[in-house]
């Protein structure tokens, strides 16, 4: 028996989470976007264009890989959904393609995005180049310093990278700057959000664009094994690769869904990004969700060795899944992620992104205790993390 998939209510809430906590200036833009997306969603020509772009600009369906040596190591079959093989090396391009095709249909000429490490910025710069649209990426000054190569990649593809100088000068502040830019240029500009966060309709729209992950993986699992996985596992930053996997899987109540947040130096220190584990409900960037914040409601800084998980919020549908128990959220530390990064590299010759390494860390931690096949979203490749890895090894 399959279960119906969750959808937001009229006000954009998944249970108590989501909604549109935005200035009145953005209401017309969000209304316009909701209508445009509802039309596109049911339009076969939109879906065909999106499917074609996923297949030929990236490489969907991405393979499902039976990691045999890793399976032997942990005692159950582990299947990796190879989102690391996407164009640009991560799942981020799936969503960027969906949104830019929509932006073009809406007649928008200017694309803006926020980025932390630069993965979503690079994906946005790439698709903006592909569709010939002007692109500005907001990026914290601190992240620009840490991720020079991604800044150069974005610039090479014609995007302007605008330093965010406010607050902690990282992803959270880049997102504030992108929202401020949108408010000021709302009539011409399309805000291409990088995860299942932000005001309605972004969380469900981004989820839909990432749901190719779960849909393909389910079909591939069934074809390969004749059955379903026991576990669906993914890392959670904002939560887009995880929701892309979880949402189609959630139709099958027998599959355990497990999201892994970044525990940084440990959830009992102040340096982590474990939003569901340590946060409480609040409003940031246009949505009600769980949030790392102090008792006064001031948002606190996140920390993770993986820049893509370094965010104090989380998508509202995850907060809903957490509350209803449909998914379980755990965390992995920087050290566990590094260990998983090395383990997959040695056992399979696949260097995973630091983000994805958090999901792998959960599998490794549970070696010998797992009850059945694991389906894990390998959200990205780790080439981008080599420099950080070497610094870490040198103890810096």
């Amino acid at each position, binding site marked *: 028996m399959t279960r119906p998939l969750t959808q937001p209510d009229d*006000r954009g809430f998944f249970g108590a989470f989501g909604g549109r906590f935005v*200035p*009145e200036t953005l209401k017309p833009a969000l209304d316009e976007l909701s209508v445009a997306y509802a039309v596109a969603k049911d339009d076969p020509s939109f879906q065909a264009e999106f499917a074609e772009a996923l297949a030929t600009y990236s490489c969907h369906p991405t393979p499902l890989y039976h990691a045999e040596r890793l399976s032997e190591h942990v005692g159950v079959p582990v299947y990796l959904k190879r989102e690391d093989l996407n164009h640009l090396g991560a799942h981020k391009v799936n969503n960027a393609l969906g949104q830019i095709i929509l932006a073009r249909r809406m007649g928008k000429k200017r694309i803006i995005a926020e980025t932390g490490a630069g993965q979503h910025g690079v994906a946005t710069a790439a698709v903006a180049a592909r569709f010939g649209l002007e692109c500005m990426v907001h990026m914290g000054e601190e992240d620009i310093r840490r991720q020079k190569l991604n800044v150069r990649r974005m610039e090479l593809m014609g995007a302007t990278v605008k330093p965010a100088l406010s607050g902690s000068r990282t992803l959270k502040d880049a997102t504030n700057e992108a929202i401020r830019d949108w*408010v000021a240029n709302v009539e011409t500009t399309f805000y291409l959000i990088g995860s299942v966060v932000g005001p309605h309709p972004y969380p469900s729209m981004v989820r839909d664009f990432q749901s190719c992950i779960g849909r393909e993986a389910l079909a591939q699992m069934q074809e390969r094994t004749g059955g379903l996985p026991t576990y669906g596992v993914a890392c959670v930053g904002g939560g887009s690769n995880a929701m892309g996997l979880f949402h189609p899987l959630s139709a099958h109540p027998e599959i355990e869904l497990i999201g892994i947040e970044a525990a940084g130096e440990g959830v009992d220190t102040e340096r982590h990004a474990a939003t569901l584990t340590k946060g409480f409900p*609040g*409003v940031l*960037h246009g949505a009600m969700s769980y949030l790392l914040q102090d008792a006064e409601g001031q948002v*606190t800084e996140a920390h993770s060795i993986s820049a893509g998980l370094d965010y104090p919020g989380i998508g509202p549908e995850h907060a809903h899944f957490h509350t209803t128990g449909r998914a379980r959220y755990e965390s992995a530390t920087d050290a566990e992620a590094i260990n998983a990064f090395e383990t997959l590299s040695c056992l399979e010759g696949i260097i995973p992104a630091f983000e994805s390494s958090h999901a792998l860390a959960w599998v490794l931690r549970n070696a010998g205790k797992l009850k059945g096949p694991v389906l894990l979203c390998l959200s990205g490749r780790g080439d981008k993390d080599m420099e950080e890895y070497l610094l870490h090894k040198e103890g810096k």
Partner: protein
Amino acid sequence: MNFTEFIAQRVASGRKLLVPYLCAGYPTPDHTVSLLHALADGGADFIELGIPFSDPLADGPVLQAASLVALRAGSTLEKALEAAATFHAQRPEVPVALMGYTNPFLAMGAEPLARKAEAAGIAALLVPDLLPELWDHLAAPGMPPLVPFAAPNTPEARLKELGSIGGPFLYAVAVLGVTGARENLSDSVPAFLARTKAKTGLPVLAGFGISRPEQVPDLAPACDGLIIGSALAKALDGAADPVQAAKDFLIPFRVAMDKKP
């Protein structure tokens, strides 16, 4: 007389309301009560007391910086309410409205907030990231009335809707963009203000971008009053005597607004 009646009476008397926005705890929490007095002395009809937030997404650089300075100096919602209560006891004829983002209000909780706001005589609540559709998130017995916002891109049908939702007044955001003093506002602002007044039927106060008394003659006739935030924060920034600076800043606006056209 409640706050809605207070506004209506001033509007009916032909007086244009002058409303400064003061970031609570800026430059330090110890300044707040005396700055409220200075603004009242300078001719404020009522005062918006801003609650600092780590992520003020509707604010430009000046109020972002003020917010950060205030937070570092230990400003909290609790302390802002205490300052408002002290001021209210001393000067009940100048109302104080709270303006702040949703999250710090939610963190206190709607019920404690309503209780403390009522005790402090808070006249109204302005929450720029809470659309009226979501006002239920701050609903609690005794909560001061919330104020709707409109922007230059708000469609006419929505203006009518905001009018029927109602409030002591409507906050007309004069620019597409964040807060911050602008030398000049677009020529279309007076028409936007007039349209907003006509379609909502509410008293309309305009804010965002007002920086100089010279702007008053263009704007004031089209609405019921002006809200001034970033320019005040700028005037306080680095002032040797912030209290004197606040008063000196506001008086020319009062003079300009009281001038009969």
